[in-house]
């Protein structure tokens, strides 16, 4: 690829990055905190690309001689950059049900921050927390594999009827909150409908969300199981008022709690479809 085409391509990629960021679509691919970085990188590439286009089209023999020998001037590798530009044209959507099936795994927690004021902050044998067994706070004398069991302490839920709770917080509270904050009252969660998969033998469905810590390559599924037939097609984003069945998330079902639905409504995909 010659110098001029390279320069055009660099400017184009910069422009694509800026457009991606300004339109907010970048949140489909990377964590939303990346916005300012992407914008800066996009503007830099645009400026460099445009300046290089000017340099390349300007007939200047001295300039040519100066560049002679710089073997990037005819880089074959640069052709590969056409691929992500084309991929962006196809505008792939945010990860959805397919990624949930691929990345689903145990939702047991490990290495979460112990709260110094919370009860029983000592690691169990597998480095995780004792799941909430539905019997209230785990007794502090409990010892598993020679180590004391710990449960988690959560702040009180926001006041009001059916407060909004992120899907991952709902799952954590359902599994680990000894006070039963989401098993004794209803909360509002947001996610999309996904098939129950092989973890559940009955016909139910999942309300799921993917959480990412950097980009879509590190996505991990957060799942809540619901009994019965799905009210909407797979992939539909919903807001649901739910309460968790105590002790429903176990090792056998990869610690996916089951929720009882009070109401469920369709909604648009959030601007930032990934949780954290």
């Amino acid at each position, binding site marked *: 690829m010659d110098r001029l085409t390279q320069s055009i391509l660099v400017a184009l990629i910069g422009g694509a990055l800026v457009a991606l960021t300004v339109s907010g679509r970048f949140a489909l691919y990377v964590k939303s905190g990346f916005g300012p970085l*992407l914008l800066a990188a996009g503007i830099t590439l645009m400026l460099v690309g445009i300046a290089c286009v000017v340099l390349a089209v300007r007939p200047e023999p001295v*300039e040519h001689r100066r560049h002679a*020998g710089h073997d990037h001037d005819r880089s074959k590798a640069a052709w590969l950059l056409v691929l992500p530009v084309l991929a962006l044209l196809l505008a792939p959507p*945010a*990860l959805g049900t*397919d990624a949930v099936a691929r990345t689903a*795994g145990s939702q047991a927690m490990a*290495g979460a921050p112990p709260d110094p004021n919370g009860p029983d902050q000592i*690691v169990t044998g597998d480095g995780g927390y004792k799941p909430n067994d539905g019997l209230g706070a785990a007794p502090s004398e409990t010892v598993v594999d020679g180590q004391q069991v710990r449960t988690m302490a959560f702040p009180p839920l926001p006041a009001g009827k059916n407060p909004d709770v992120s899907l991952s917080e709902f799952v954590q509270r359902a599994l680990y909150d000894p006070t039963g904050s989401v098993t004794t009252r209803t909360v509002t969660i947001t996610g999309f409908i996904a098939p129950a998969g092989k973890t559940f033998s009955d016909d139910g469905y999942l309300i799921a969300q993917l959480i990412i810590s950097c980009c*879509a390559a590190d996505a991990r599924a957060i799942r809540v199981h619901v009994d019965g037939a799905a009210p909407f097609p797979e992939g539909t984003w919903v807001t649901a008022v739910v309460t968790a069945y105590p002790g429903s998330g176990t090792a056998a079902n990869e610690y996916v709690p089951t929720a009882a639905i009070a109401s469920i409504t369709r909604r648009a995909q959030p601007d930032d479809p990934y949780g954290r």
Partner: protein
Amino acid sequence: MRWHHGPVTVDAGVPTPTGAPPGGRAPARRRYRPGSTEIFGLILLAGVALRGPISDLLKPGGAETWLTIFVAVNVQALPFLVFGVIVSGAIAAYVPPSFLSRMVPDRPLVAVPLAGVCGVALPGCECGSVPIAGRLMDRGVRPSAALAFLLSAPAINPVVLVATAVAFQADLRMAWARLVAGLATAVLVGLIWERLGRPEWLRPRVRSAPEQEGPRWQTFLSAMRGDFAQAAGFLVIGAGSAATLNVVVPHSWMQHVGSSILLSVLLMALLAFVMALCSEADAFVAASLSTIPMVGKLVFLTVGPAVDVKLVAMQAGILGRRFAARFAPLTFVVALVVGTGVGLAFWGW
């Protein structure tokens, strides 16, 4: 033509990819190759025209997931790569080779660890440090020292260490263990390369324009443009393989290792290689793997920033294929061994 060949710039006599003679004979260079821009334009037009049918074709199964991950890896790496080529272009345009050779000590036993420690100062992730390392070699920095810098910068810079500490709040030793293991891997690989590495394996594609012809800012711009096109081109290969492995390799692997240290160490090293996560994000992924022992997680965090599919592609593009074919296995083994050793020292069996 005044060339500032560093000790590694050995391509004299090796044809450049386009077959143009090295050392740049101006007439050969000036030949206009028609089509480059036109071909590019045609591809782009075809892409715009066919985007509807193609995206329908991709709907079922993993193809769409692949495309999303492919775009995501590229988008996520670009800011860091841009940062890397800004530094690399600035070195090309504004740092005279004599300055670097004065700054870097002559004795490898001093230079390599020093370069490793200097990695702390570059807050970025692994994509950005590849063009910088290539440029440093070009400017006469001893390859072993530049490689130690290449390995340590993404592993132990403050941003990465803070991210690790946040992800492992329950056990802050992980951040320290990562610092020790990352630095030890970088220095060890550097010293081994000093001993066994041969200059002819390295064929850096980044080469400086001759000094003092034309304004510096033009050198800066064209070095940036060239480095970016080259490195990002290979990033695309890496992103493609990472996306493929991400879709193909079952994530349930991680769930079934149990607590066997040996098995988990091997599996985590392989996963780090194929997943090609950004070094600023890998700690969060490692922390979420509840069944893996701490030693396995540390190996994941030590191998990942040092060698993965994305990095091997970029190193092959910037430093040469013969280099990458030797450097990648060496780094993999050293990072695996060092990560395991440091992990055992921190957490025991």
